[in-house]
């Protein structure tokens, strides 16, 4: 056995034949196709070579965390089930999960080891259909994450905190969320780099929304500034289900986020809101793809971006309206604020419409801070630097403000302020 085979034999679910098969098939595809490169249309602005050419470590090492490092991120005010992962692995000591009727909630490793039936029925059904390099890699080496199965009613929120410390670890978080008929689920995913280590995170989430179900999904990506992260979300929506996602990212040296929504049942609705903020030489790439498969579905997407220094962002929003998807209502917006002459954004709305009775709108803008607003603040005695930070904060805060969860909003405001060059100056304005 070589090192890689040894590693795979130790991964969760190794004794469950269905899981083993899933991993092996993914590995075969991975060995065949490898990682995407710039020749791939979906990756033409994002070179992943710096990430995939590095030798990150698959082995888990013991780390010790200091309470004061964690405290700000634990969201102790939030009434939620909390699952904490350190360098990709579930850490029961920091977690707090209580029994609740209508809810099965456990770490992905546990679900894989048990061979949970619901898990087996869904795992890989949505992601692996479109198998690209990172999806295959995750399925082959997925280690931990959360497994959520809501069978009835509305459960309290689930908070999944992924902490990263130290150098060199590669982690493969995998989440599966199954929300059954008429039930609701709220999931907060927070990825935090606690120090400035270089590591890689390749994640997948699959979510299935059965008829009349609701999933609210918050994602905060604040990996270390030297980290590499790729996250793929696959959302399968049945009739009259509703998916709301709020995506914040300002971490990682290189980050790629893909959101794929398949509107497969009539009357389904999805809403994607997001904010990306880049500094220094960060590269932040957001790709979304919404497939309107059937009639009477609605989709909404509103992303904002702020780029400073020499950072670069990519936004690509695809909406496919398939021939049966009459009465589709789709709108998409992407607004970008460039704070430096060297910052860059490539924004591309992409609509492909094969039905004739639909309503689709999209818009993209790239601009700078409004001079009149700056002058207004200055004329009230606010110095130029603070005025710039206030307007930048205001631009970003608009997205934070949409988050329908007060505890999370407060946390995001705090984190956002730390991202601004002179955040302390404007703290008192809020």
């Amino acid at each position, binding site marked *: 056995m070589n090192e890689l085979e040894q590693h795979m034999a130790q991964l969760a679910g190794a004794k469950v034949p269905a899981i083993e098969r899933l991993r092996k098939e993914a590995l075969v595809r991975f060995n065949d196709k490898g990682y995407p490169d710039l020749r791939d249309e979906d990756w033409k602005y994002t070179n992943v070579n710096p990430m995939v050419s590095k030798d990150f470590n698959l082995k888990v090492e013991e780390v010790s965390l200091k309470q004061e490092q964690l405290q700000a991120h634990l969201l102790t005010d939030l009434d939620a089930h909390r699952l904490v992962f350190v360098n990709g692995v579930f850490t029961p000591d920091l977690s707090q999960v209580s029994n609740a009727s209508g809810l099965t909630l456990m770490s992905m490793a546990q679900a894989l080891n048990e061979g949970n039936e619901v898990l087996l029925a869904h795992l890989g059904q949505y992601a692996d259909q479109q198998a690209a390099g990172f999806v295959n890699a995750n399925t082959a080496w997925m280690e931990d994450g959360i497994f959520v199965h809501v069978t009835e009613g509305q459960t309290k929120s689930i908070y999944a905190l992924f902490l990263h410390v130290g150098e060199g670890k590669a982690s493969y978080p995998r989440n599966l969320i199954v929300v059954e008929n008429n039930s609701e689920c709220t999931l907060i995913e927070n990825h935090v780099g606690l120090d400035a280590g270089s590591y890689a995170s390749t994640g997948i989430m699959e979510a299935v929304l059965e008829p009349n179900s609701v999933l609210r999904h918050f994602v905060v990506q604040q990996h270390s500034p030297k980290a590499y992260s790729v996250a793929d979300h696959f959302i399968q929506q049945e009739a009259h289900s509703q998916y709301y996602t709020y995506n914040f990212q300002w971490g990682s040296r290189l980050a790629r986020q893909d959101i794929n929504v398949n509107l497969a049942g009539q009357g389904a609705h999805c809403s994607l809101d997001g904010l990306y903020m880049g500094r220094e030489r960060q590269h932040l790439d957001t790709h979304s793809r919404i497939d309107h498969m059937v009639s009477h579905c609605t989709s909404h997407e509103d992303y904002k971006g702020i780029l400073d220094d020499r950072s670069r962002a990519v936004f690509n929003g695809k909406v496919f309206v398939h021939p049966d998807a009459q009465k589709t209502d789709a709108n998409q917006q992407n607004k970008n604020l460039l704070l430096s002459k060297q910052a860059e954004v490539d924004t591309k709305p992409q609509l492909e419409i094969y039905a004739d009775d639909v309503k689709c709108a999209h818009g993209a803008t790239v601009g700078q801070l409004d001079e009149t607003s700056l*002058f207004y603040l200055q*004329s*009230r005695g606010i110095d130029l630097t603070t005025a710039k930070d206030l307007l930048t904060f205001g631009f970003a805060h608009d997205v934070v403000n949409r988050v329908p969860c007060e505890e999370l909003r407060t946390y995001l405001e705090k984190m956002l302020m730390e991202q601004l060059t002179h955040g302390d100056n404007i703290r008192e304005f809020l």
Partner: protein
Amino acid sequence: MLEIKNLHVGLEGEKEILKGIDLSVKAGEVHAIMGPNGSGKSTLANILAGREGYNVTDGTVQYQGNNLLDKSPEERAWEGLFLAFQYPVEIPGVNNIYLLKAGLNAMRKHHGLDELDAMDFLALVKDKMKALKMDEAFLYRAVNEGFSGGEKKRNEILQMAILEPKLAILDETDSGLDIDALKIVAEGINALRSPERALVLVTHYQRLLDYVKPDFVHVLSQGKIIKSGGSELALELEKSGYSWIDDSQRADS
């Protein structure tokens, strides 16, 4: 307090808007600058407050004995110059009360005074708001966001009342106000009249001047002050409109 001499101003890279303005404003005086659209009224207000994008090609502006034009807008504010905007700007995400407090404290700091704490400031601002019949809820809303036209103008006067400027320039503060709001705003302005303070009212119409009586009225047309007089000049303008200006300028040329 303010000495403008032969001021020539153009938009950057474009034609001249102000073509030789002379104006002297002393403490305690109220001046009205009237004129038709496009005469350069707002340009004059903006250049005094330090807005970018203009090019001063000739002339000088002295404020309290110093060159005003080389100061940043915030320095001018700290030294007691205030501009009430014709179109107050919405600033999403920034609470009204904190803008007011930060502006005042920056100014106090500039003058070597202690900053006001939250409690003292709140007491001060509530007092001023009562006079302007403003609801306290305004304090906790984002600056001007979703305010009606009248609310925005009242908010400008509130800012002025808090900052207590030495020289206040009010750009079309009466525009977009109904008669009740106009009266409240005018009361707010009158409350600030004092022997130490000068006011410059920039306005197209005379109606604000019914409530805030100016000591001097200047008529601005095509970038020049073509006539100056007492408050009776405003009434004259109201009666005959601005058409006589065109006639007289045509006669000049």
